[in-house]
């Protein structure tokens, strides 16, 4: 019993030999120790393999892991008007970005995000389209311009969304809204089409690009050069710190020749009527105002306009998307007369003192229908000055026949009619400056004398754009120097203190046969405003400075010209009212073309608009 207790053996069991068992156990234990020794040796070899033989590969991979090279988009250049008022700014905003690779099920993630921030119903499809230009591990913008509420809501739930983050950025903002839309244009989301016209490497971090107007024309200057940043990220892709940074070169600031106050004056003067106003400084070709009305708020396009908003703009009366200053084609009407008068004098077809009798009706041999004066009964005997002052059609019917269509064409072409002015905006319309060759090319038809006659008062085939008309007026005002008009006044490169002034190139320098001819036409135009019988004498300034002008009326419906159109005529059938002017008379610093669609008479409707613009400009310049 004692022995059993001693060995721990149970009753009925054979006795154990503890000594033998102990020896056996030691052998086993020793074997086990050898086995673990070998196992540990093999395991160590594995670590040697990883840490010594593959050290370089894994080191490279660990560096790749943590370092990401991200583009740093430059700040877009700001735009100012000529007096330094900011007209296109950058404002801090927040956008939501998503790394597709990290986000898991994209559709579901976007659906869940949709509960925190407002997303359009097609957000997933749009996102899928946008991400094509990014690499899978890049962060792709999902929603721009988050509200403060959305930012706060997302911040609370951020932990639920791997690979989704809020990024601050500079959003374009146009403080003057629709006032400058047709000049500035706007920026919008960079899309695949845009990428084909830019250096893609430079746009890697860029989300917006100029889509229209100045923003598009000067895209390269405004955009700047993208920088690069090496950043350390953690496993969730969150940025921890910046290791190395090559700073971007920010975009150039642009100073436009435009004066917001003059622009505003033109805008206000047009009122509710669709129309266009262009004002150019005849001394340097800089564009002082450029209004096309109606317009739209460009800020709507910056963050991606919704389909509904876009349809509203598209279908709005007066076609706000249509830039009348560049694309609007109008009959010049009587505004062509000063140019033709000059053509007659300079070519010697007429002399200043030559007089024509206006009976109210002008007949062309073999044509029974009369060409009429706007004043019943006619103006009597008039010379060049008088013909301009009172806008006597008969005088210019005669002059046109004297010149012939081709000489008219050639001389008007010198003023820029029939071709784009070369303004620094895209998509300018050429207008139409007819000639025999043009008509043959266009219609395969010969030219008829009747067409020459009405061309003498700017009707028929003639089509001009407001920018052409304004530039021609400026050329007339400065004595024959035709600039390519410039909206850009100066460029301030990033980091520079001084802006670099833009010089508008001269397109044509007209050869002046006799300066007295120019003075004569100027004098006629002065009488339009200041003469006793001047058609626009209503806008005559009381004092301080003098204005030279010329009214015009463009036919809408086929109807005899009659500047005293009835107020009862339906609006859409009323003629377009035109007016060109420059001031001050002695030393002009502004030339204006104003078009009021369906305004009726040029002197009554368009002249006051031109006057308002001139007033605004001259008060800014300190002339009055």
């Amino acid at each position, binding site marked *: 019993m004692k022995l059993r207790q001693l060995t721990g053996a149970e009753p009925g069991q054979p006795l*154990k030999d503890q000594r033998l068992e102990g020896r056996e156990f030691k052998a*086993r*234990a020793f074997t086990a120790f050898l086995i673990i020794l070998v196992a540990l040796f093999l395991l160590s070899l594995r670590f040697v393999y990883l*840490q010594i033989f593959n050290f370089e590969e894994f080191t490279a*991979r660990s560096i790749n892991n943590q370092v990401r090279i991200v583009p740093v988009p430059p700040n877009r250049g700001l735009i100012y008007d000529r007096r330094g008022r900011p007209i296109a700014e950058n404002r801090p905003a927040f956008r939501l970005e998503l790394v597709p690779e990290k986000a898991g099920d994209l559709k579901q993630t976007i659906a869940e995000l949709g509960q925190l921030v407002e997303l359009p119903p097609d957000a997933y499809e749009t996102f899928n389209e946008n991400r094509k230009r990014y690499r899978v591990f890049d962060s792709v913008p999902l929603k721009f311009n988050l509200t403060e509420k959305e930012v706060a809501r997302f911040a609370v739930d951020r932990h639920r969304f791997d690979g989704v983050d809020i990024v601050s950025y500079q959003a374009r903002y146009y403080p003057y809204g629709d006032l400058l839309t047709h000049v500035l244009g706007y920026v919008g989301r960079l899309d695949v089409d845009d990428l084909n016209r830019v250096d893609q490497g430079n746009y890697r971090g860029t989300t917006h690009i100029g889509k229209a107007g100045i923003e598009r024309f000067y895209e390269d200057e405004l955009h700047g050069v993208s920088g690069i940043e090496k950043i350390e990220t953690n496993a969730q892709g969150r940025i*921890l710190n910046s290791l190395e940074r090559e700073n971007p070169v920010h975009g150039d600031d642009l100073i436009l020749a435009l004066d917001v106050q003059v622009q505003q004056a033109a805008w206000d003067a047009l009122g509710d009527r669709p129309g266009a106003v262009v004002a150019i400084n005849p001394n340097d070709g800089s564009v002082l105002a450029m209004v096309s009305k109606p317009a739209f708020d460009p800020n709507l396009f910056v963050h991606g306009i919704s389909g509904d908003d876009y349809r509203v703009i598209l279908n709005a009366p007066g076609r706000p998307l249509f830039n009348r200053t560049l694309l609007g084609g109008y009959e010049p009407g009587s505004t062509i007369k000063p140019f033709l008068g000059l053509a007659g004098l300079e070519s010697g077809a007429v002399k200043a003192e030559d007089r024509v009798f206006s009976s109210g009706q002008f007949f062309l041999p073999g044509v029974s229908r009369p060409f009429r004066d706007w004043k019943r009964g006619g103006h009597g005997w008039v010379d060049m000055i008088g013909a301009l002052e009172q806008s006597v059609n008969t005088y210019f019917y005669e002059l046109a026949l004297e010149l012939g269509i081709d000489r008219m064409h050639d001389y008007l072409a010198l003023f820029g009619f029939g071709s784009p002015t070369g303004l620094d905006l895209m998509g300018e319309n050429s207008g139409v400056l007819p000639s025999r060759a043009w008509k043959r090319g266009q219609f395969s038809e010969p030219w008829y004398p009747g067409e020459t006659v009405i061309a003498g008062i700017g009707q028929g085939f003639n089509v001009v754009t407001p920018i052409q008309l304004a530039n021609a007026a400026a050329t007339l005002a400065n004595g024959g120097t035709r600039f390519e008009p410039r909206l850009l006044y100066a460029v301030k490169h990033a980091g520079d203190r001084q802006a670099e002034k833009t010089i508008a190139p001269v397109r044509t320098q007209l050869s002046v046969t006799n300066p007295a001819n120019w003075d004569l036409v100027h004098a006629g135009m002065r009488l339009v405003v200041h003469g006793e019988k001047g058609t626009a004498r209503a806008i005559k300034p009381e004092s301080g400075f003098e204005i030279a002008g010329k009214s015009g009326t463009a036919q809408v419906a086929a109807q005899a010209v009659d500047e005293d159109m009835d107020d009862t005529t339906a609006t859409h059938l009323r003629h377009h009212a035109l007016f060109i002017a420059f001031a001050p008379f002695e030393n002009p610093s502004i030339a204006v073309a104003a078009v009021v669609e369906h305004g009726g008479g040029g002197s009554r409707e368009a002249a006051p608009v031109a006057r308002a613009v001139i007033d605004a400009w001259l008060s800014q310049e300190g002339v009055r």
Partner: protein
Amino acid sequence: MRRFIPGWIQWPQLDVPLLLGLLLLMSFGLVVLYSASGENMDVVFRQGARLGVGLIAMLVLSQVPPHILRIWTPWLYVIGVLLLLATWFVGVGRGAERWLDLGLFRFQPSEIMKLAVPMMLAWYLHPRRLPPAPAALLTSCVILVVPAVLIARQPDLGTALLVAVSGGFVLFLSGLQWRVLLGMAGLALATAPALWLVMHEYQRNRVRTFLDPESDPLGSGWNIIQSKIAVGSGGLTGKGWLHGTQSRLEFIPERHTDFILAVLSEEMGLLGVIFLFSIYLFIAGRGLYVASLARTTYARLLAGSLSLTFFIYVLVNAGMVSGLLPVVGVPLPLISYGGTSVVTLLTGFGILMSIYGHRNFIR
């Protein structure tokens, strides 16, 4: 002097070399944990407290003579099995029902089995002639398989295998013939396909990922790839303590628990790894030495099995971190953050200490 000390404290009963080895390991572990937790002193203190609790458990157990433990063994085993059954009904935990909530604290019954299974087998074989006869072998297998299956269906395949292995070590140390051992190993391999069928999908994925981690580098392969990058980029001397980019930038998953070895490898390099392995080898070797000093079958088998099981943890964890084995939830003993395994392990070492301290008592 000596008689004023209560009788149950008998000097010297502590295995001083083993204790020093453990203390060195734990201190080293806390240093690594400080870095792995992102210099979080809270985490280090909490782990230090657990180690303290474990050490107290170890000291208390070292005073309990092995024959007392042997008497308690069947009860411990039965209670362990019953608790495992209880997790079927009242288990809490994320997906895997391995925890029992006891109000004050939660614990995993499977942890008890890590000790109870080798104890039970040692208890069963203690009075028998070794190597065990076929009938005894069969009974041993039942003692081993029942808890293993219960744990496997929690599901916690890693622990189940480790529990089975700890039992297997008892059989190995009992002097089982090599051909029988090989036969059993062959049988285990043959059941592997069947195991695949009863596996959960996430377990299958782990195996798939293990076989080809690069197939899904951001999904299930992430852990293995990032861990290997961490280890490999450590090189010979490492990136320096607190300077491991993989761990500090959170590329290493579970970096202060199961994958803490990756942090150590990255920051201290191959030299650090070899140093750690040396400590482990010393502790396991010392454990086997203690086992060979023991005078009773129960003590021998138990001490040997505990030492080998301890070492198996190291092998499995290091194999996992270095991409040799699939990702199974096995912590690096006494280094990984976490309470349960610390207490279990130190309790085991308490048993070893007891066996050492009572090696001259024949009972």
